[in-house]
């Protein structure tokens, strides 16, 4: 390779470069581009931070509301109970406890509180409530309640089932109302 070839090759390589722009200048330009992206990232980070704070605040509010709702439902003098998503009883109101002779510790299935003939209706209602995530499902059902002491008392009740997400699980609030008293 003669010097002319070398020169030509050199020119050919240099031909791609913008005139007067050396590596240091390119580094500088590239660093400016990094700075722009870092600025953009910082802005996105601030927005995400604000969004996270809002979501945390909303979550806390929702948790407080959920607690209030739970307390309200359990403290009012009605036939209220809470089950898990399989229908196992977790908590009962005092009136419910007196009627059925159970408490939240008994872990019984809600269907066992009713006469076998009515359990199918109850399971159907529960299944519908499970499908309607976080929605209120109400259905009038004529249920015969097996009361405390094995005596059977006939009640005509309207069960209201409300599903509420609770710490990653779903809880179901059951409110049994006697239409005769409404």
């Amino acid at each position, binding site marked *: 390779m003669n010097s002319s070839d070398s020169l030509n090759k050199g020119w050919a390589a240099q031909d*791609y*470069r913008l005139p007067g722009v050396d*590596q240091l200048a390119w*580094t500088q*330009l*590239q660093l*400016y581009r990094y700075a722009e*992206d870092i600025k*953009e*990232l910082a802005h996105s980070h601030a927005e995400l931070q604000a969004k996270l704070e809002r979501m945390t605040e909303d979550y806390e509010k929702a948790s407080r509301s959920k607690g209030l709702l739970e307390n309200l439902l359990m403290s009012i003098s009605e036939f209220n109970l809470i089950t898990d998503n399989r229908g196992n009883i977790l908590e009962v109101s005092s009136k419910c406890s007196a009627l059925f002779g159970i408490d939240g510790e008994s872990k019984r299935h809600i269907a066992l509180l009713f006469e076998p003939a009515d359990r199918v209706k109850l399971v159907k209602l529960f299944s519908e409530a499970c499908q309607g995530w976080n929605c209120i499902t109400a259905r009038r059902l004529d249920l015969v309640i097996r009361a405390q002491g094995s005596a059977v008392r006939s009640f005509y009740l309207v069960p209201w089932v409300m599903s509420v997400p609770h710490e990653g699980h779903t809880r179901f609030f059951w409110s049994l109302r006697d239409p005769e008293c409404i």
Partner: protein
Amino acid sequence: MLKVLVVDDHSDIRRLLTVTLGSEFNVLEAEDGEIALKVINKESPDVVLLDIMMPGKFDGLQVLDQIRSFPETAKTKVAMLTARGQAYDVEEGKSRGADAYFIKPFSPLQVINWVRSQQR
């Protein structure tokens, strides 16, 4: 972990890209086309970030031609990284089989997002 080869004669750019990608990917470096081809044959990187304007035996487009011409390397993802940002240059890169084209000064976010997208 995805293996990424950065090919650029400009050491600062190589360093910047290595720092940018190094926390997520296994980054290899080559300072010219000839070394790049040796690294590609030896290490079989998944992704190559290839500067076009390089001194030496092969420029970036010639390296791209070599990558595409061998069955072992033909499917390697290649992004051209260059100051040549004219539409003609972009078309030239695409027609020769480049998967992406980043114009210098490139956005590091765009580059890292593109490399990430090659993992899927």
